[in-house]
């Protein structure tokens, strides 16, 4: 414990006052002295700590006003602290020349503080009142508008946080300054007058009414667009004014933009060629643009009238549509006609804000007129295309009918072709016609040709032309009548040619056949002449024998000549008379006999007795039989291997309907014909014979003749042999058909 005691002694010794003579307190007991030292030191320390605390608070709370007064108080407290500290020091070190002036300084600071407080007291006195209502103060502070209170002289006595940021001044700068500080320099003199006026009127108002936009001046000299509300407040100092200032820079800009937009929109509406008219929910016209006014021939002052009053002649249909738009709030598009002006418009009616309707419309009268004229022109063109007996139709690239005129419908015996496929609508078109049409479609080169449409037995001349967008047009005229006449002429020609051909074919044989008997007659007669000339006596037997031979041979010639005459006759105009089938067969065989015999072909006929007479043109049927025999001859001659015979068989049958018929079959030993040959055999000019072997008209002509007699001519296959069967009604029905 010693060392410790020693140390304590040392500290005490150090703290021993050296000169205490000048202070009565030295006479105090040491305990008292220590009490004094400790309390003074503590008080001094507390002064300093308070100072730091205050400074810290002030630094953190910017809103605390009266900084100068505050600093004076702080200085005063520090000075007091220092004075206390000096009192402790002087206990041990009598530096009274130091402590004395410090106390004087302290006194000076305290006086200054007093003066300061004295001066600030009115303001300070005012603060506690407002601050008392803490909520109110917060309200002001946080208000979005700047709030100032100005006394009667114009001095700012209250300003909130927003005012600081709005004007760029700190609150201390604002408080106590004249409010003119915030008025743009150019307006300050007037502002003073206005302010005075306001104070005298004593009623709340919005500042700057009728003066245009208001601007406030910021500390940096820039100006902000503001709105200011003024309110007088009566106080003991007279009438104060609270001003609520709102920064409207942003709103002004928006307004300006809006205005510009409206102007643009307006000019747009005015300059557009579209007419615009808007009505509100009560059908009052709110707007119509210049175009609308001019198109509808009205002044723009109809704005304010109802639509119904302004346009009494509007058609009810249109009104119905507009009402519907109004009710349903759904837009509508329609075409309108306004009779008083003969005006056709295309209209879009849209629901408009506040329950109204905006109508946009444009004049299409010209367009409609053109269309009407075009339609008339089209109708005229169509009427030209109609009733011409020329069928016209157009198909598109997919062969779908796009246009069909009346004549085409008539000729084709079809209705409702539009939109239908041509090939499906008219199957059975010949391969040639099909091919030619397809060619025009693909090559885009026009073509004209004759065509035959079998299902309708229609012969036409077609003119096929490429049509826009890949289709074709087809114009056709009915040439069936023409063709029929042509056919008849052809038949006649063919008949004539055939007779000539038959004559030519038989002429050699016939001449031979005639020359032979003529040679016999000539020889017999000349023998007699010679004998007589020589003066020989002719016995009756010789003369008889010779002359009998001459007569017999002459008969032969006459028979041949009769057959020839029949062959040479037209036949077509002869009356239908009863003819014996047997005679007809015999006569035909007679004509070919020589040729057959010469070529070693056996010809037989089987004609039973008692066949009825057949009503027919004998010559024509004879020609048919002759044709058939010629065909058989050619067929046998063409075949190197076949047997060589022809058989003609006549018989009578009763058809299913009970009609009595005569059948004449011409069967030959030639090879059976192929199906292809059979198909074409009856066509004119079809021939199986090599070139020069005949012109192939026989069978078609024969068939035409038989058909005209009400009979048939068919090709049959009889046990591998060719057989033509000629069927004739025994009592012919008179058929006026092909003039064969």
């Amino acid at each position, binding site marked *: 414990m010693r060392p410790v005691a020693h140390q304590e002694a040392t500290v005490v010794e150090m703290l021993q006052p050296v000169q205490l003579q000048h202070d009565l307190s030295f006479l105090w007991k040491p305990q008292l002295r220590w009490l004094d030292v400790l309390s003074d030191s503590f008080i001094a320390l507390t002064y300093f700590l308070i100072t730091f605390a205050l400074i810290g608070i002030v630094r953190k709370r910017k809103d605390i006003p009266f900084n100068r007064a505050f600093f004076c108080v702080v200085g005063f407290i520090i000075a007091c602290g220092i004075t206390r500290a000096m009192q402790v020091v002087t206990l041990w070190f009598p530096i009274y020349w130091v402590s004395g002036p410090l106390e004087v300084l302290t006194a000076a600071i305290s006086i200054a503080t007093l003066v300061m407080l004295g001066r600030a007291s009115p303001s300070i006195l005012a603060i506690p009142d407002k601050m008392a209502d803490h909520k109110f103060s917060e309200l002001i502070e946080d208000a979005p508008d700047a709030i100032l209170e100005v006394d009667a002289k114009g001095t700012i006595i209250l300003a909130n946080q927003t005012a600081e940021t709005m004007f760029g001044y700190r609150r201390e700068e604002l408080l106590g300054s004249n409010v003119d500080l915030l008025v743009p320099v150019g307006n300050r003199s007037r502002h003073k007058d206005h302010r005075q006026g306001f104070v005298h009127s004593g009623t709340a108002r919005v500042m700057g009414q009728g003066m245009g936009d208001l601007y406030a001046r910021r500390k940096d000299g820039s100006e902000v667009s503001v709105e200011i509300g003024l309110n007088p407040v009566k106080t003991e100092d007279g009438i104060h004014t609270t001003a609520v200032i709102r920064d409207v820079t942003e709103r002004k800009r928006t307004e300006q933009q809006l205005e510009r937009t409206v102007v643009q929109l307006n000019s747009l509406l005015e300059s557009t060629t579209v007419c615009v008219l808007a009505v509100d929910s009560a059908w009052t016209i709110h707007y119509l643009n210049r175009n609308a006014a001019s198109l509808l021939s009205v002044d723009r002052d109809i704005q304010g009238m109802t639509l119904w009053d302004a346009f009494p002649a509007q058609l009810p249909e249109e009104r119905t549509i507009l009402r519907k738009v109004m009710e349903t709030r759904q837009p509508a598009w329609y075409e309108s006609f306004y009779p008083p002006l003969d005006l056709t418009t295309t209209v879009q009616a849209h629901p408009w804000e506040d329950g109204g309707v905006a109508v946009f419309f444009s004049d299409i009268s010209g367009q409609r007129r053109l269309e009407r004229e075009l339609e008339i022109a089209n109708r005229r063109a169509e009427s030209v295309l109609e009733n011409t007996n020329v069928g016209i139709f157009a198909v598109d690239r997919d062969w779908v009918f796009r246009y069909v005129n009346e004549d085409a419908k008539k000729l084709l015996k079809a209705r409702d072709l539009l939109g239908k496929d041509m090939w499906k609508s008219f199957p059975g078109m010949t391969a040639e016609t099909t091919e030619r049409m397809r060619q025009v479609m693909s090559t885009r080169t026009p073509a004209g040709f004759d065509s035959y449409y079998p299902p309708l037995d229609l012969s036409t001349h077609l003119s096929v032309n490429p049509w826009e967008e890949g289709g074709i047009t087809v114009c056709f005229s009915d040439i069936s009548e023409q063709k029929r006449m042509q056919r008849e002429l052809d038949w006649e020609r063919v008949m004539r040619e055939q007779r000539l051909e038959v004559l030519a074919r038989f002429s050699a044989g016939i001449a031979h056949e005639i020359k032979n008997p003529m040679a016999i007659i000539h*020889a*017999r007669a000349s023998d007699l002449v010679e004998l007589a000339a020589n003066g020989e006596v002719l016995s009756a037997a010789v003369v008889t024998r010779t002359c009998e031979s001459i007569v017999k041979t002459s008969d032969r010639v006459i028979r041949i000549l009769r057959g020839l005459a029949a062959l040479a006759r037209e036949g077509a105009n002869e009356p239908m008379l009863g003819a014996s089938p047997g005679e007809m067969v015999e006569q035909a065989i007679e004509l070919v006999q020589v040729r057959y015999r010469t070529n070693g072909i056996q010809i037989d006929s089987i004609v039973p007795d008692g066949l009825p007479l057949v009503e027919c043109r004998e010559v024509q049927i004879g020609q048919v039989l002759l044709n058939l025999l010629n065909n058989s001859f050619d067929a046998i001659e063409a075949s190197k291997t076949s047997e060589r015979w022809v058989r003609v068989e006549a018989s009578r049958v009763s058809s299913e309907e009970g009609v009595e018929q005569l059948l004449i079959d011409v069967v030959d030993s030639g090879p059976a014909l192929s199906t292809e040959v059979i198909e074409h055999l009856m066509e004119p000019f079809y021939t199986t014979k090599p070139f020069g072997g005949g012109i192939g008209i026989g069978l078609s002509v024969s068939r035409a003749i038989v058909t005209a007699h009400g009979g048939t001519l068919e090709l049959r296959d009889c046990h591998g042999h060719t057989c033509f069967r000629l069927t004739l009604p025994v009592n012919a029905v008179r058929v006026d058909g092909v003039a064969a």
Partner: protein
Amino acid sequence: MRLEDATILIVDDEPDLREIFSAWLECERCTVLTASNGMEALSILETTKVDVLLSDIRMPVMDGVELVREVFKRKLEVPSIIFVSGFGVVHLREMYGLGVEAMIEKPLTRKYLVQVLHDTLKEREELWLIPSARPVEEVELAMGSLAETEATCQFQMGKGGCCFTSDRPLTEATTIGLSIEFAGDGRKLKAQGAVRWFDDATSQAGVSFLYLDSSCRDWVIAGMRKWAYRSFIPECRCDTSDVSSGDAAQTIVGASIPR
């Protein structure tokens, strides 16, 4: 040969005519055979020597043309052939080539038939003695040897005429004067003939002799006999190559004799 020594075959499908012709010829005391068609005639010709074949053209089974073709083909001894035609188209060039000597038309008298048969049966020495008064045209040609022209079909001889390549078109059924010099043989044919056929395409002509000049008569007749020609007038048909080698013939332009 005299008619009464001759054997004559009559072919006709007309019995009355066969009967009449037979009667006429039997009056001339010649031997008469008959057939009703070519086939029958052919079988007779194969077994019997016939001097004259008198045939109809149009007949059943086998006609006259087919008959002479067969005779030629079978290399039978060819008699003088006379066609008796009614009416018909025959190819003259072929017919003369096959040995047909004459064609007569029906109807015909006994005298005419007998005359024709007489002429046909004459020896060559009796023929071609009298020149025609005035041929319508004179043809003069120059050629190589006879053998050469035979091979190239430029000139060929038959038993009653010749065929040759002419230097000008000739009209059928006209009489021409013909003078052909065969340089290779040092011979010259001088004759008159009737143009029986003319081929425009090849400019070939078939001519039957009417007169042979005495300067050439001997060697021509000797040649005919020596070569025993089968054709009356040859057809002058050679291969195309031979025909085109006609350059060998030097054609002398003969003076046309004005009508």
